[in-house]
């Protein structure tokens, strides 16, 4: 199963705007897989949204899941 991830802000610079990851069942394994691919991600702050809902706990993904990673912005 392949899950599509949309990246915002600095995260998009790290990996390009959209990436997809194969064979992940939930958000924890997704992040683990992304951290291996993009080591800088592990030291960057962001929130995870699944289907436009910001999540705070490990969340099961299906093939239609849309995952977004958003960093905080401070600019004004």
């Amino acid at each position, binding site marked *: 199963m392949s899950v599509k991830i949309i990246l*915002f802000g600095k995260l998009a610079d790290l990996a390009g705007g959209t990436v997809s990851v194969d064979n992940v069942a939930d958000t924890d394994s997704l992040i683990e897989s992304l951290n291996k691919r993009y080591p*800088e991600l592990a030291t960057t702050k962001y929130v995870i949204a699944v289907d436009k809902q910001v999540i705070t706990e490990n969340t099961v993904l299906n093939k239609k899941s849309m995952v977004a990673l*958003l960093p*905080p*912005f*401070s*600019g*004004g």
Partner: protein
Amino acid sequence: MSDQNLYERYHRQIILPEFGEVGQQKLLKAKVLVIGAGGLGCPALQYLTAAGVGTIAIIDDDVVALNNLHRQVLYSVNDIGLSKAKRAAHILQQLNPEIKIIAYNQRLATQNALTLIDDFDIIIDGTDNFSTRYMINDACVLLNKPLVYGAISQFEGQVSVFNPQPLKGRNEAVNYRDLFPDPPRDGEVLNCAEAGVLGVLPGIIGTMMANETIKLITGIGEPLIDQLFTYNALNNQVYILNLSARKDTRSLIPKDKKEFLKIDYEWLCAAPVQQNEIDSDIFNRMMVKGNIDVIDVRELHEMPTVNEFNHIRIPLAQLGDNTSLIKSDTVIAFCQSGKRSLQAAKILSGIFGDSKKIYSLRGGIVEWKKQKQTV
């Protein structure tokens, strides 16, 4: 001003059925505090002033600079070097002499935040740093004040309405810490000076903040409560994310005013500690002496490139794992603006303690190159 003139000034919004004279009266009675008269503050202030918000206060301790003008559209070249709060108030008062505009030419700090915020109905966060943003959020939660939040980076912006007055059937409204519980450390994100920003972007986001504020005051439409609006100026992609309260958020916010005053928000956000900063001049003299490791802690792709002096490149995030590359007893870190290098100096001081002398180049490579041109 006579009622007739008042009616004429706001006629085009009063004739909106949802808005009406009632909406206008609500605006005229409202008191809004705009924190930061920069990229977001300027457009928000212009529209709130034009719309007839009865009392508007502006707090900002900064002065107008030439590199502000591409996005801070209230100011002109004649304002360079002058207080943003005072200039903004003066310019806005000319746009609408019928409302009350107050300028605070000072920095919002824990000591003045609660007293100031308590005087207003709605708070607008147009600041440019995390320490103030977290401080404003916590103060608004403590005082039960709705907070209209906006933030930008490069080509992207975020807008939300935090902590609104309790709505019917809702227990707890989301605040900024439900989205990002803890402030990022320096280097975990880029600021505007380092990352850059397209001038029109804060215009869009700041205008949206004014719109959310007007909706909150007049009670029309659907403000971005429990939602985060994100906008990308390059591809016009809009995402609205739904937010929910976290269980542990309350424990992160000071319990009362006394506790709030004790929090060092600057430290919380790893704001600069100045004692180990050196300026370009001292940097050059130290370079002549030699026996120094100079480290560029920027990301590898960042411009401008540096070929004027020898240095090693270790992006901030990888610094802790690559200290074996640092051999000399004196180390100078630099980055774009001097912010991340301060964080780097902090990290290295933590690792090496007193065994090495560690410095950060103030103003970063941008300032160094500028100094070099003027010599």
